[in-house]
Structures are given as structure tokens and as C-alpha cells.
């Protein structure tokens, strides 16, 4: 038999083995795999694109630095379209691939929790960069997140608002799992601080005309307004508030923190205040390195979402490294749970060993003359 044929035969055998789902012992060159699910098409595709960009940046640096003891890591991306059904299908697909050690994503709490049920069943760690619904980490011991929850952020902002004076507040919130929990956590904390809530107004995702909600808010004459939504909706809401002459000071969830808010909203977004973990003006070398690398790779400045994803991927890769090249899914989970003081661009992150909630530090921000400024 000629050598070419021999090689062909080996290849054919290998292909057959793979096709049968038989996992051959990984050779040194075989990369370790992690799955990443995110919306890459549909209404929230811009967030998915940002996550993938940030992930690629982190992964390239990690592999260039030697990977997991010389074994590179590869990320498989799947498009969930921000649809819970798709999210579950992707989770099953990842779970069925024995070489995938852990999963990242999804974007919204709704999809992450749906997919989380699958990961919980098969025992595979899931780390979401953004799912901040309080119930997410309660799905099972396999759920982790790299974002402070609304249960952490809401009380922080509630206290801040009370310190600046307002006694009553109106809440305008997007009607989804995340928005409802953000609004409720904040309302609870604000009342505990001695304030009153004039009302919680929910709007449907996709709604871009806030005039009737704002008129209703204006009728109640609150001292301040708290927005629980994303920066695109907020840009429209704030422009329309300016147009309707609604003057109450506006505070918001950290999800408004993006340069896009100012680009879209113009003058109308001046004065909005929010808490955030990621501040690109932070002089720390890892933050400045990330900001300049991101800018040179993709041409625009990273926002909080990109930073959350960048750190989520970093935390996952650090856990893979700690677990070693021969680790099982369970060992990766345990390594993830043991994360303490990971020095990321969103502050030092540790996971609580019991609740798996991240601890981070929050900064107070305000939009002033079309720029984000850190207060204090």
C-alpha cells in the first residue's frame, strides 16, 4: 500500500470515528472547546456582535500567551436570536458535543434561564456576561454570571437618589424578565430608604413612542425618574421627555452606559445618572490596554457590554487554565466557582462560593455636556 493511501485510510477512520460520536483521546494540538451563545441576528444582534468581538480579543491574547499549558482554546459561537427556544436548542447542541467543556451566554436573562435548564441537567458550567435576573443563578449550581444583579445595583442607586434629595420617584421599565426584576428591586429598596414610588410603567420591547407613558409620569409629578431599559430605548425616551418638557432628574440602570446613548440622544441625555462597573476613563493598565486594543481592532470604543463579555471570557479561560488540559466539565465548574479576585476590566471579580454571585465595585456616573463623567 502506498503511503498516500495509508494516510487516506487513517483519515477516513478518524472521520468515521468522529461521525459515530466517538471521542478519540485529544492530541496536544486539539484545542479545548467552549460554546458561546448570543444573539447574532434579530433585534439584539448588535449586542451579540459586541460580545463576539470582545471574546475574540480576549481569546487571541490567551492563546498567544500559551493557552492551557500549551493547548489552545477555541470558542464555538451560536446565534440564539434572543429567542428562548433557540437558546435551548443551542444548549442541547453544546451539551451533546463531548469536547465542549463549558458554555458562555446568553444575552438576556430570559434566554439564559431557558438554556440554563439544559446546562443544569447535563452538568455543564454556564457563565453569562449579562443575565442579571436574580433567579438566574438559582437555576442550579452550574450557573454563573459576570454582572452585578439588579438586587445589588437597584439598592445602590436607590440610596444614591435619596442622598441627592428626591423623595418620590416614577419608574419606567421595559417589560421583560430583566426589566421587571430591575424595577421591583429598585422600588423595594427605594421604599426601604424612606422614599415613595409614584408608579411603575412597563412598556413592551420594541416600543419607541414613550409620549403617553411620559405624560402619565408627568401627571404624578415625581421628584425623579428611574429608567430600567437599554440605551437605544432610553435615547428615544429621553428625547421625547425633553420634547414634552418633563424636567425631573433622571437616574437609570447601568445598561444605559454606552457611548451610543450620547450619539443617539444628543442634548436630551445630559444629566442622566447611573451606576456602572466599567469606566473606560479608568487609568488602570488593564482597562487602558483593553480600550486601546478594542479601538484598534474594531474602530469604536468598547462599552459596558463589551467589557462584561471580555471579562466573562477571561474568567472562563482562567478557570480552564486552572483546571488543566485534561479537565472534565465538573472540574471546570469547580475551578470557575473558585474564582477570586480576577483582575478584569470591570473591577476585581470574585464568585461567592455558595450563591455564585459576583462581587464588584460600582462607580457613579453622570452625562455632562455630551460626555460620561465619574462623580466623586
Amino acid at each position: 500500500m502506498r503511503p498516500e493511501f495509508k494516510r487516506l485510510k487513517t483519515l477516513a477512520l478518524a472521520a468515521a470515528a468522529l461521525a459515530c460520536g466517538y471521542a478519540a483521546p485529544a492530541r496536544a494540538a486539539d484545542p479545548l472547546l467552549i460554546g458561546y451563545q448570543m444573539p447574532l441576528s434579530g433585534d439584539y444582534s448588535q449586542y451579540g456582535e459586541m460580545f463576539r468581538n470582545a471574546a475574540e480579543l480576549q481569546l487571541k491574547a490567551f492563546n498567544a500567551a500559551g493557552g492551557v499549558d500549551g493547548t489552545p482554546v477555541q470558542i464555538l459561537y451560536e446565534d440564539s436570536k434572543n429567542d428562548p427556544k433557540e437558546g435551548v436548542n443551542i444548549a442541547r447542541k453544546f451539551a451533546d458535543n463531548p469536547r465542549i467543556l463549558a458554555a458562555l451566554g446568553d444575552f438576556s436573562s430570559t434566554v439564559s434561564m431557558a438554556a440554563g435548564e439544559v446546562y443544569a441537567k447535563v452538568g455543564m458550567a454556564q457563565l453569562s456576561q449579562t443575565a442579571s435576573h436574580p433567579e438566574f443563578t438559582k437555576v442550579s449550581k452550574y450557573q454563573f454570571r459576570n454582572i452585578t444583579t439588579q438586587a445589588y445595583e437597584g439598592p445602590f442607586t436607590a440610596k444614591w437618589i435619596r442622598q441627592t434629595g428626591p423623595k418620590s420617584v416614577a419608574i419606567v421599565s421595559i417589560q421583560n424578565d430583566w426589566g421587571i426584576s430591575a424595577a421591583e428591586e429598585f422600588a423595594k429598596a427605594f421604599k426601604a430608604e424612606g422614599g415613595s414610588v409614584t408608579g411603575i410603567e412597563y412598556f413592551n420591547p420594541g416600543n419607541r413612542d414613550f409620549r403617553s407613558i411620559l405624560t402619565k409620569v408627568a401627571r404624578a409629578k415625581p421628584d425623579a425618574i428611574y429608567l430600567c431599559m437599554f440605551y437605544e430605548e432610553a435615547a428615544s425616551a429621553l428625547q421625547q421627555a425633553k420634547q414634552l418638557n418633563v424636567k425631573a432628574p433622571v437616574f437609570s440602570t447601568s445598561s444605559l452606559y454606552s457611548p451610543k446613548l450620547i450619539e443617539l440622544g444628543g442634548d436630551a441625555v445630559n444629566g442622566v445618572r447611573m451606576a456602572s462597573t466599567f469606566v473606560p476613563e479608568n487609568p488602570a493598565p488593564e482597562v487602558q490596554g483593553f480600550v486601546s486594543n478594542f479601538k484598534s481592532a474594531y474602530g469604536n470604543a468598547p462599552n459596558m457590554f463589551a467589557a462584561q463579555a471580555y471579562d466573562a471570557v477571561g474568567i472562563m479561560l482562567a478557570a480552564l487554565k486552572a483546571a488543566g488540559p485534561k479537565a472534565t466539565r465538573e472540574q471546570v465548574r469547580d475551578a470557575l466557582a473558585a474564582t477570586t479576585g480576577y483582575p478584569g476590566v470591570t473591577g476585581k471579580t470574585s464568585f461567592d462560593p455558595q450563591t455564585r454571585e459576583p462581587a464588584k465595585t460600582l462607580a457613579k456616573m453622570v452625562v455632562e455636556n455630551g460626555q460620561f463623567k465619574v462623580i466623586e
Partner: protein
Amino acid sequence: MPDFFDAYFAQQIINGLSLGLVYALVAIGFTLIFGILNVVNFAHGEIYTVGAFAGLLLIVGAAPPLLAVVLFAMAVGAAAGVGLERLAFRPIRRFSDEASLKSRAMREATLLSSLAVSIVTRELMVHFFSGEMQVIPQAALLQEVIAVGPLTLTNGNLFIFGASVVMLGGLQFMLYRTRVGLSIRAVSNNVLGARHVGIDTNRTIVATFAIGSALGAAAGILVGLYNGNIFPYMGFAPGVKAFVAMVMGGLSSIPGAVISALLLGVSESVATDFISAGWKDMIAYGLLVVTLIFFPQGLFGHGRERV
């Protein structure tokens, strides 16, 4: 509660009328193609989006006066409408025997083909412009405040109102006073009959698509500048509401669709004062169901076989 009917309530009515006018603006072109011509067209929302993007590109590129922007958007919309007809409708019309013309399956096939064009167009826009809201130069926005006592209007309200009146009047004139309108009504009434009396049905259908789509595109750029957001998915929500308005108005009546659109807008807006805004879509669909139960022909329609 007498103190309820105050300036805020009046503002809520104004909000509702402006919302209704937005729906009406979309519904006018939609009703012309869908209702009058009797073809199921689910790509009107994308024509609306294409119009908004075309207008925005011109604003960013040359910053011309608003009229030029709207005319440009209408030209692009008309071209897109003709393209849509070629892609999604003409291939399905290739059989002209009586059985095929009367076949429901043939008519309903355009539901899927137009839906396909709509999805492909939308995802192409996401591919080239990203799913994000586009940055609109602040000077181009139609959000200049016009205060009337304690109430606020914007110049966008006036433009949208003006455009609705012009479109409605122009279309009624065209449909009932011109030969093009006559042939559109003839084709809508009976394709075979129209052909027998010498009307070029293909040309009439293309003309209807061009006109309806130009109106849809004008709506897109005006509403985009008024609400301050232009993005690939912007056509969906107004498209659905325009559909509801058209059905409520009796499918073939453009003034009916406009009145229903205003009714929808005001009900949604005023309802926000009583229930959570999260439920406001229920108002639209509730009104639709009530209309269909009590007025199966719509509020302003007259009996005719429908898909």
C-alpha cells in the same frame, strides 16, 4: 373624577392623535396594495424601513431640505416597490387562466413570498447597517417643540398630519378621478374582466405597487425623524398596527383605515392613563376582535370576498 380632564388628559389625546397619524401614514400605502389590489403584501414594513434608511443616507450625505429628503425616499420606495412586485408577486401571477386567477392558493402564495422578501431585506439591512439604531443628525429631527399653552406639539406632528392629508386626498383623487385609478379599481374588482376590456393588468399592478410603496417610504422617513429612531426592525410594529387599522376600516377603504388608525392611536394613548402601557397592544387587538365580531365587513367596508 372631574380633575382628570385636565391639561395632561388633553396632552394624552394629542399623543394619541399623533400616534394614530403615524399608523395612518403607514396604513394608507398598505391599504392601497393590500386592500384595494387584494394581494397579500407583508413586505410593506420593510419598504417603510427602506424609505427611512434612504432618507437618512441622503441627510447624512448632503443635508438637503426636508422636501427633497421625502421625495428621494419616495423615489427609492417606488423603485423598491417595483422590485418587490417583480420578485415576490409576478412569478406567482404567471398563469392567467381563470382557475388560477380565482385560486385562493395562488393568492395566498404571495403571503409567503412577500414574507420571504421582507425577512431577507431586513436581515440584509442588519448585515450592512447593523441592528443598532442609526445616529440621526440632531438638526434633522422633527422634534422641534411648538408649545400651545400647557400642551406640546412638535413640527413632526404637523408634517405627519400634512402628509396624511395630502396622501389621503391625493389617493382619493387618483382612485376616483383618473384613468390609472379607474384601472386600479377595475383590476381590483375583476382581473379577467379588466383584461377583457383592454387594461394592461401587469402595468396597473406595477403602478399600484410603485405608488403604495412610495407612500410607505415617505411614512418611514417622516416617522423615523419624528420618533428619533431609524433601525432595520422599525417597520414591524407600525406594520402590524396599520394592518389592524386596515382590517378595522374594512380592507378596501382608505379613509376607513385612516379613521381606524386615529381611533387606535387615541385609545392606546388614553388607555395608558388607566392601565399599564405594557398592555396597550391588547387595546389594538381587542378593538380588532370586537370589530370583526360586530362588523365583519369592517367599520367602513362593503361586502366582498377576501382571502
